[in-house]
């Protein structure tokens, strides 16, 4: 393959990474934006989404697309409910103290990971793609499902954006984000908002995982990389800014796709993590972030 098509392939792969990353990271960003806490267990919610997708698709009889659709509905709801419970039982009791929350969500991370190992096992297991169509380009064939992933992620992100900007519930969430106490004074049930936001944030990670699992397989340690990459994206995009998060996901996803085709992926990760640290130190509003307030 000559250079042009090679680059095209790298960009298409990068686009898939970016789409899934944008979804997962937007969940982290939403939680940080509204609740001002960092959820270290976010990657485990992602992993749970994939594992649940595997269970669902093996249980649902019939064609692959049927099981996939059920998983796409069940996994986010189940994961969201679990997260909401964690919020109610743990985070609220900590009064969302930022540092205590990080320690507690690290604890959740270990518990969820270990539970997955015990009940799901150490193996990576595949989930069949819902359809099997290939796009034939002049230079190479490309999985149609991967294009579907990009499309689906875009739809979910658009829906999230409309929800946050146009719906009444979204307005309530943004009001809480701007000033928790004022929101409370206006009769908003802040506890309920926080529980919902934490649940939705985790559900977004689960959606991302269900979309990726036909490409990547479900494994109990698969939450680690998305967590790190989501951190990177959210920080470079500007903490709590949804628009910045999507832009950063595109940049990171595309450059990751391209860079890891030409360079060592480890080196790329080293540079990315160092970049994140330096951005937080010298430009805390992010590289692409517009200040929300």
């Amino acid at each position, binding site marked *: 393959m000559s250079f042009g098509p090679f680059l095209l392939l790298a960009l298409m792969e990068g686009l898939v990474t970016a789409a899934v990353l944008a979804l997962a990271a937007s969940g982290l960003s939403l939680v940080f934006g509204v609740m001002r806490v*960092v959820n270290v267990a976010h990657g485990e919610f992602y992993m749970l989404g994939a594992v649940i997708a595997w269970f669902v698709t093996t249980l649902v009889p019939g064609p692959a697309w049927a099981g996939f659709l059920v998983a796409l509905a069940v996994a986010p709801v189940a994961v969201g409910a679990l997260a909401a419970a964690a919020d109610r039982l*743990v985070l609220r*009791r*900590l009064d969302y103290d*930022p*540092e*205590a929350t*990080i*320690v*507690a969500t*690290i*604890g*959740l*991370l*270990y*518990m*969820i*990971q*270990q*539970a997955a*190992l*015990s009940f799901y096992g150490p193996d990576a297991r595949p989930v069949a793609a819902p359809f099997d169509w290939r796009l034939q380009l002049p230079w190479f064939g490309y999985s149609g499902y991967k294009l579907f992933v990009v499309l689906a992620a875009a739809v979910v992100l658009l829906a999230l954006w409309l929800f946050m900007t146009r719906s009444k519930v979204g307005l309530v969430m943004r009001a809480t984000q701007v000033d928790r106490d004022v929101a409370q004074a206006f009769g908003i049930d802040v506890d309920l908002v926080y529980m919902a936001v934490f649940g939705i944030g985790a559900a977004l990670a689960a959606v991302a995982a269900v979309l990726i699992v036909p490409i990547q397989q479900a494994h109990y340690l698969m939450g680690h990389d998305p967590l*790190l990459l989501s*951190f990177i994206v959210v*920080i470079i995009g500007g903490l709590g800014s949804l628009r910045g998060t999507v832009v950063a996901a595109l940049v990171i996803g595309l450059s990751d796709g391209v860079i890891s085709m030409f360079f*060592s992926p*480890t*080196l790329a*990760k*080293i540079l990315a*993590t*160092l970049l*994140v*640290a*330096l951005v*937080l*130190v*010298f430009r*805390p509003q992010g590289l692409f972030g517009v200040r929300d307030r």
Partner: protein
Amino acid sequence: MSGAKVWALHLAVLVALFAAQYLLPPYHATNLARVLVLALFAMGYNLAFGYTGLLSLGHALFFAGGMFAAGLPAYHFGFSAGPALILSLLGGGVLAGAVGLFALRTAGVSFMIVTLMFAQAGYLTLIYFNAWTGGDQGFAVPASGRSLFGFALSSDGPRFAVAWGLFALGFLVCLALVRSRFGRVMVAMRENEERSRLLGYNPFVVKLIVLVISGLYAGLAGGAWALLFGYAGASFATIQYSILPMLYVLLGGAGTVAGPVLGAALMFWLIELASGLTSAWLFLVGAALVVLVLFAPKGILGWVREKVWRGLP
């Protein structure tokens, strides 16, 4: 509480720990050596987190830094244990100073994430240079590197003696430090940084010094681990090894001199016990973290200090 009594009590702890090697069955005496090295690491973590309020998620980098600063020269150039330990001390301190120069410009959650990212970059660097470091598999430290003043550190007696000696050194330095003039300033940073600035202290400098001291502890512990137990690997740079000292400190009591060793011992044998019953011991670590922050954020000795003995350092 008079100074003499405090010193006497802490010396008694050291004597009891030394005596334990003769009282415990050999298998657990070796484990106690492990606990003492981990406690040395946790004491350094405690100086930053417990006393100064610096909640770091990057200490694994300083631990692994010390481990490889001792292990690599021993493996590649045949260094013996003495010089290797000194290098580990330097490795931890230098890394902590370098990270601190950047990370200490931030605070709170940002500080946690910045330290986490530096540690992750360090871990990946160890992987990237796997031709030298052995990557995830790591390497066994050769016998030539595991000898100190002619004693083989692979045999039980010398191994315990070195582990205990390094721990005792760290323990006494820690006690002297937190009772000193500087120790008072460390706590002032934790309690109210803005106020301490208006009393004439430079928070950045104070915190940098503490982080370097903390890094010296972590580095020495990492080096001791490599030489005493004969193995160095990149996995010691993963976030799990930043979480463990935090867990020990939270359990034993943040901001107490004896808390880290108490927490390390309890947690070590709790995990040991649990892993005899189930493979899911990591679940225990997670549950312990959640339960501690929820119900006992001050830890055991923190509770003692609050209810029983106000003057406990």
